[in-house]
């Protein structure tokens, strides 16, 4: 990480005129103006329409049953679980940026950590929706929680799905706390700048009486550090546990020990891709170019390149192990990914996840917002296909050829997927509009004004 911290963008800020007031003003104004930019309205309109589609899909699903989707024997899981793993993966970058980079004193994270955390929360919400929807009887998933009940039922703790409940649940809780706690000083700033009583009351309530005293700051810093330390293992654990759904099963293509690190790398990869996909338009439309600088984007591009290579390595290693294990079923499962009926999804994944990030070897590409944005989008597509390849392709051809099948998604599958993006972007746009998008308090610690004497530590 030394290489990254060496190029701390705030040591040599691109524009030397960032001072405390300007940072506050820049960030707070977004929430204070009467009318957000037109782009926000367009985006919000599209997102809420998609959210409406999500609502319709879910209502129809509850009415009719899983049969409205393409799920079939033997691809029992299909889109909903692909979407679940996809969203959980997206939800990784936030905590990684907030916690791990915080502990590693990667100060550049301050520019992006708030909305990366927000993204995490919303992605985890999207993710958490799917396991609930995909069960055959969606009114009963609470049976997976260890709630004492008169039916004498208790969860079955040997099941990786049960582990998921706790892994994702813990992650969501800690991420939410971390996000909210980090936001308290900024919410107080919003409260203080409020001109309407309603805003003052609401922001005031959520600011929890923050006055900015040094004692409060002291407690705040301690708690933040503790939460960061608590969240760090979760970044690694949650996707490792999600990968156990597959790794501990018997299905060829799932049953591999490489999955936990591979899933974590993939999650960070996909998470950062989503951060840049969101950051590029956000800094454009909300005038945050001075805070989320091109240097930040370049650093994230480097992480995307690095994690993309890890993911590419995992793809290769899966083939090697399949061959090395000598298992006929395992070998076939991997070959079937590459040249079977679903080969198109495999090569879409390889193109998006392995080939596309290679452009980041070039500095000019790393500093081109358009390139970064499109690579981010492609990597997100690629990461979705990665989960499709693992879940659908492996399932479609397992041990006994007589039970093989071919999964064909229905319109409702796509509607639910698109709808989940609607949910995500609606929440995200509301966040952009009403909450501090950048951690003002943290950024201020690193702007040149805070280091007038030139010492930066």
């Amino acid at each position, binding site marked *: 990480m030394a290489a990254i911290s060496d190029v701390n963008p705030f040591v040599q800020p691109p524009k030397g005129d960032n001072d405390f007031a300007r940072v506050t003003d820049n960030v707070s104004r977004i929430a204070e103006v009467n009318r957000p930019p037109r782009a926000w309205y367009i985006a919000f309109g599209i997102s809420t329409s998609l959210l409406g589609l999500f609502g319709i899909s879910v209502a129809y699903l509850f009415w*009719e*049953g*899983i*049969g409205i989707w*393409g*799920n*079939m*024997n*033997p*691809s*029992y*899981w299909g889109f909903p679980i692909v979407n679940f793993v996809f969203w959980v993966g997206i939800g990784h970058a936030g905590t990684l940026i907030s916690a791990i980079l915080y502990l590693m004193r990667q100060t550049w994270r301050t520019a992006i950590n708030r909305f990366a955390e927000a993204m995490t929360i919303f992605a985890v919400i999207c993710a958490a929706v799917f*396991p609930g929807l*995909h*069960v*055959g*009887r*969606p009114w*009963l*998933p609470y*049976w*997976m929680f260890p709630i004492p009940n008169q039916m004498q*039922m*208790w*969860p*079955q703790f*040997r*099941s*990786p*799905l*049960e582990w998921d*409940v706790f892994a994702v649940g813990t992650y969501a809780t800690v991420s939410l706390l971390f996000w909210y706690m980090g936001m308290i000083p900024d919410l107080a700033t919003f409260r203080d700048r409020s001109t309407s009583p309603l805003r003052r009351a609401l922001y005031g309530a959520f600011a929890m009486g923050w006055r900015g005293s040094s004692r409060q700051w002291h407690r705040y810093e301690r708690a933040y550090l503790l939460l960061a330390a608590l969240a760090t293992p979760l970044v690694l654990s949650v996707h490792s546990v999600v990968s156990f*759904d597959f790794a*501990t*099963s*018997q*299905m060829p293509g799932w049953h591999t020990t490489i999955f936990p690190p591979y899933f974590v790398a993939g999650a960070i990869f996909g998470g950062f891709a989503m951060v840049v996909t969101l950051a590029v338009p956000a800094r454009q439309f909300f005038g945050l170019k001075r805070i989320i600088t091109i240097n930040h984007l370049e650093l994230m591009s480097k992480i995307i390149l690095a994690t993309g290579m890890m993911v590419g390595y995992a793809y290769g290693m899966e083939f090697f192990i399949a061959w090395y294990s000598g298992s*006929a*079923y395992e070998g*076939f499962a991997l*070959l*079937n990914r590459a*040249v*079977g*009926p679903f080969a198109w999804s495999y090569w879409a994944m390889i193109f998006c996840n392995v080939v596309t990030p290679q452009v980041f070897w070039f500095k000019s590409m790393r500093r081109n917002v358009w390139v970064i944005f499109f690579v981010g989008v492609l990597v997100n597509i690629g990461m979705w296909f990665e989960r499709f390849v693992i879940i659908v392709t492996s*399932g479609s*051809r*397992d*041990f*006994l*050829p*007589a*039970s*093989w*099948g*071919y*999964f*064909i998604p229905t319109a409702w599958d796509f509607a639910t997927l698109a709808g989940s993006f609607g949910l995500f972007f609606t929440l995200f746009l509301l966040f952009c509009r009403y909450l501090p998008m950048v951690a003002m308090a943290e950024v201020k610690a690193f702007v040149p004004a805070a280091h007038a004497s030139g010492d930066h530590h």
Partner: protein
Amino acid sequence: MSSLKPDANKKLPVVTSPPAEHSAPTYWKSLAELEGRPEFVARARAERVEDEVESPSSPERRQFMQIMSAGAALAAAAGCRWQEDHMLPMSRTPEGRVAGETRRFATACDIGGTTVGVHAISYDGRPIKLEGNPSHPSNRGALGLLHQAQVLELYDPDRSRSPQLDGQPKTWVDFDAFARGHFEALKASGGGAFAVIASASSSPSRAALRARLTELLPQATWVEWEPGLGEGSRLGTQLAYGAALLPHYDFAKADVVVSLDADPLDDLYPSGLANARAFAARRDPDQPMSRVYAIESAYTQLGSQADHHQPLRAELIRAFAVALDAEVSAAVGASGAQPKPTSAALNDPKIAKLLTALAKDLAAAKGRSLVVAGEHQPPEVHALVCRLNAILDNVGKTVSYTEHPNKDAPARVAQLEALTAKLGSAVSTVLVLGANPVYTAPQDLGFAAAYAKVQTRIHVGTYHDETGKASGWHLPEAHWLETWGDVRAADGTLSIQQPLIEALFGGRSQIEVLASLLGETHTRGLDIVKHTHRERLADPRKFRRTVHDGLIDDQLPRVSPELKALDPIALGERDNAPLDAQNGQLELVLAADSKVYDGRFGNSSWLQELPEQNGKLAWGNAAVMSPATAAALGLTDGQEVTLTIGGQSARTHAMIVPGTARGSVRLTLGYGRTRAGRVGGHDEQRVEPVGISGYALQSSKSPYFAGGLQVSAGAGTIELSASQDVHTMDQLGREGTQSRLGMIVREGTVEKYKKEPDFAKHAVHHPPLLSLWNDPVVYDGHKWGMTIDLNKCIGCSACITACQAENNIPSVGAKNLARGREMLWLRVDRYFKGDPDNPEVAYQPLPCMQCENAPCEQVCPVGATMHSSEGLNDMVYNRCIGTRYCANNCPYKVRRFNYLNYNLDVQAVTPYHGFRDEDARIKAMVFNPEVSIRARGVIEKCTFCVQRIQNVKIKAKNAKRSIKDGDIRTACQETCPTQAIEFGDLNDSGAKVAQLAHSPRSYGLLEELNNRPRVRYLARVKNPNPELG
């Protein structure tokens, strides 16, 4: 459904008065006895009428009738009670009856004249499941899939519900009034203007009534119309012996079996189920094994177990038979052989070699060999087969003959043709009895048009079908489970059919209709049957005994006929054709479907949804051809094709099935129905026909196969609704399948087996299978297990339908099936091995393996699937939330998920609206109350018929005895014609299943995964001719 008037014809449930000595019981033993008094009878009548006014065809309580038949199973138990012969509502529980306890009643089922003995399982007056009668010689306890599906037909709400005249509802009173006058006039004129078209039946009562009809109307015509069954052997024996004979085979004694396009193991072949059992018994490698050769146009059940299989077009079988005759005659030194033909196909080196080896093998097994030919083959082939069996000294040993019941009649199609010519002119009244000629007559007869010209058209049938629609009078025929009747098996065994339930829709049986038309004194089913057998079964106790046992031994005498010299068989151009046929010269094979037969079972969703034996196609038919034929025609699987033959065209889809003969295109009959019902297709209900009708391409000259077929490719390609090989036919999938076949279906030869009996255990190499934990379950009580002998399975799929009937498995319909949402708990996997044009085929029935170290149990987050102390993977439906993780982790993929509410909303094509509508309530009567109906969103799977296990355990516990081996039989095991499936307690070392599980041939499928499956397969062992190596 027609009128709200009470049906005056329907017999009221009158309780017979007790005999004189019981007439005034001072002390009554039961309420039923007390209520036998006249005032009760009057009250019952009043109630009955009132009830019918409310709801004429409501299936509710009053029609949950129970059988109190004379001498049925409980006759002995209730010996001191008078004989009752009427249906009573179950609202009054008879003495000795425990509500909710099933009872078995013997009866018999006749489909197309082929009879099997049946035990009907009745639950509180509803027959819900059929099993074979173990003492009946034609099936020995087994049933075929058509028999298993009969209960579904019984409760089919689409069955005809009232007499109709020109589409207007009428009553039986109206019909009787019409018939009385009409038939008096016919009788007066000698009956020349009257004709009957009747489906084949083995009923002695119907035969007696037919004789009576000939007496009363001497000039009347009687045509037996059974389009699904060929008559090759009847006409062939006429050629060979000068008399129509019925051959009976003894596969138990046959060391060498040669089948020429024949399937003598089929459930509709005379004694087919008994043949299957005897055949399979000879496939045990621990005993002297038979050697089987099959030369056939498509894989049959027998062919699937053949040691040598040669695909050959049906039209080339004749030349092959001639050549075989020449070779065998030379080998055994018999005179009078046909000259050896010089057909192009026979010059093929493989076939020539096969012929030589075959002749040698047959000659070496004189008196211990058997040659059979398919019924659709021409009479000459059968005459040659008779000759071959005679010169091989097999007659009286492996084959014997009895007189054929239809001895002198010309071929059925010729009879129908002759009648068609007279329709509308000489014949002005036609009675159609159970047949559907408007749909099933070969198109070139123009039957439908001729029939329309007939003045009086009367149709008797269970459905208001195509013929019913084309008729003036339509009369609902009662289902055989609703009526008294009598049937005779191929070997002469007589069975009395007893009603299991009051006719749901008030129909009459064929014999009742005939008797009333003829003005007989006995017009009720029971009276007719008693009258027919008045000499044989005069003693009421004997009659009761016969009804109770389900049969009376009545073997027909075997005849030893004298072989006639055969005329030389002229082989034409088509007989001499080469193995490959050009487009335009292809062969079209039109065979009765294994599921819907000639079309009559087209409204059965169980049968429609059953994947057919070889192509695994459900819900429809297709132009089936071999990969080579498809390649030559440039067709892909599912591509639209137009079949043109004899100026007729039909559009369907191509289906590539390896093992089909080159140049042969096979289309099964019985599809494309427009008046089957809401499942099979109905024009008025706007339900599209399932599949296309093969009859539209059929010619009366050669109904079952014909040359000169032109296939033209269409543009579209569909996804065939097959249960297997959907999208898997790419190169990788084929190679992947072939490479693992040796591990899945383990196979060897007798020679290999003798040298290395446990070869199957070494087919897969794996590290030692260890577990981190000690086994949590010790199985100190029972330890249920199953073995499936792959050397016995002939792929008939009766087990699937039996499982569906036993376990209330819903049908999902064509669309859902094509999407891979099949619900069948038991599937029969079919694998082809080797050369795609002459592959070997293997079937593998696959129930839940009930693994001891079950992958499904470990991954369920809510503990909905748990291990029982007896080793079952219990599925707790109520606890299941439907994550489907268990199904993913099951390496056998035997778990089924209710993607939709199949039992309530979907149920094939018929939409259900809960149990709210009347149709749904009728359909629900078929459910087995001991098995939960699964709702949407839960996983289900094979339970080893846990309800049967529990029932036996409870009974054994109450009787304070232990469970004997064979007490518990799963539904699949009980119906299996070849006894390939064994079930029992693995802890009982004497149990058959325990012995088989320890057989050197046994192996666990995918046991290298350390699942420890409880179902063990016995490897296939073949007995090839070393000369054909």
